[in-house]
């Protein structure tokens, strides 16, 4: 950081939140460009940006020995606010604004069944994986289980139930790995699993739920299917944020 002149670092430090916005914007633009240039849109730019963020967080942690990734670097403290609980929560809730009740009804019973099945199977898979890796407390199990749903449901559940930061980071990573897997596998798996019509796309969106993964995967499979999958996938994270702390955690408390 000594490479930058003092008058510049003073400004960057004083307006650390704006610094964070600029850095994230730069990161996203590089990722969008690389995704289009090197993966021909097969990997979503957002997923690449998130993966790069995780990588940089690891680097930041290694450099500073801290626990908050890049936010431990003196100039990038603003990232702690931008990526913190408050901004995360308000951004998640704001996505519900696009939802119309009429569309909710149109999705109908099939979509609802897929959502319930998808969430409960993801929770179960995540909890089993966490159990296999030696976690035995309800907080960690619920958080990693929720992370197998999406990278939002995991940290939201983890924060709600008071899980350890390391466990929340695992749940975030699980959600990210899932999103990338879905992106890459969908085009190849579409034919064998019968994913070639609107209803199947709605079912797929509800079962997989990971929004960026499903959207990018289907866009590479058949762009006409994207809106149908979006209809159900859009509810997955919201429903997951409701069900993770409200159903999964109490259930685990009761089981253990």
């Amino acid at each position, binding site marked *: 950081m000594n490479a930058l002149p003092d008058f510049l670092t003073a400004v960057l430090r004083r307006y650390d939140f704006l610094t964070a916005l600029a850095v994230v914007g730069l990161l996203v633009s590089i990722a969008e460009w690389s995704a289009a240039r090197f993966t021909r849109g097969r990997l979503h730019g957002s997923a690449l940006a998130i993966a790069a963020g995780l990588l940089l967080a690891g680097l930041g942690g290694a450099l500073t020995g801290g626990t908050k990734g890049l936010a431990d670097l003196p100039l990038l403290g603003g990232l702690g606010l931008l990526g913190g609980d408050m901004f995360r929560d308000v951004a998640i809730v704001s996505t519900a604004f696009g939802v119309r009740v009429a569309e909710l009804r149109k999705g109908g019973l099939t979509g609802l069944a897929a959502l319930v099945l998808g969430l409960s199977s993801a929770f179960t898979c*995540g909890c089993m994986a966490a159990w296999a890796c030696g976690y035995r407390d309800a907080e960690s199990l619920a958080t990693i289980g929720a992370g197998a749903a999406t990278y939002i449901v995991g940290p939201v559940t983890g924060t709600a139930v008071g899980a350890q930061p390391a466990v929340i980071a695992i749940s975030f990573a699980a959600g990210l790995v899932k999103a990338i897997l879905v992106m890459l596998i969908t085009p190849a798996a579409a034919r064998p699993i019968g994913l070639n019509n609107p209803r199947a796309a709605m079912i797929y969106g509800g079962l997989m739920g990971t929004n960026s993964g499903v959207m990018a995967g289907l866009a590479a499979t058949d762009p006409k299917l994207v809106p149908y999958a979006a209809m159900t996938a859009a509810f997955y994270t919201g429903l997951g944020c409701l069900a993770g702390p409200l159903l999964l955690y109490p259930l685990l408390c009761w089981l253990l």
Partner: protein
Amino acid sequence: MVIYGTALLAACLLLGMTLGGWLGAVTGLNRDLGGIGLSMLLLIASTEWLRRRKLLPAASQSGIAWWSGMYVPIVVAMACIQDVARAVSGGPAAFFAAILAVAFGLALTALLCRSAARISGDAEKLP
């Protein structure tokens, strides 16, 4: 005005989190129970109500829409502040969880798509 939309969003979040905390207290778990999900339901209900009465002009909507546009950048920032070293030292739980969930999801899709197609005779064709 833009602030009306943002204020509504903030109010829904505050109310939803309060409800979530209250639910947690009532059930004796003393944790936030679904505050985010409840906030989302509140936002859907309140914007739908306002929209029907034509009380949600474009400016107010943009006060909410801006935040949903910031969703991905905020998640990227969130990625930047994770404790990666501790997560990695936590073992392969993240990979196990993700791979298991995806495999299960694919199998369930195949199962549901086939049975749905059987029930309805044939699947809806794309227009």
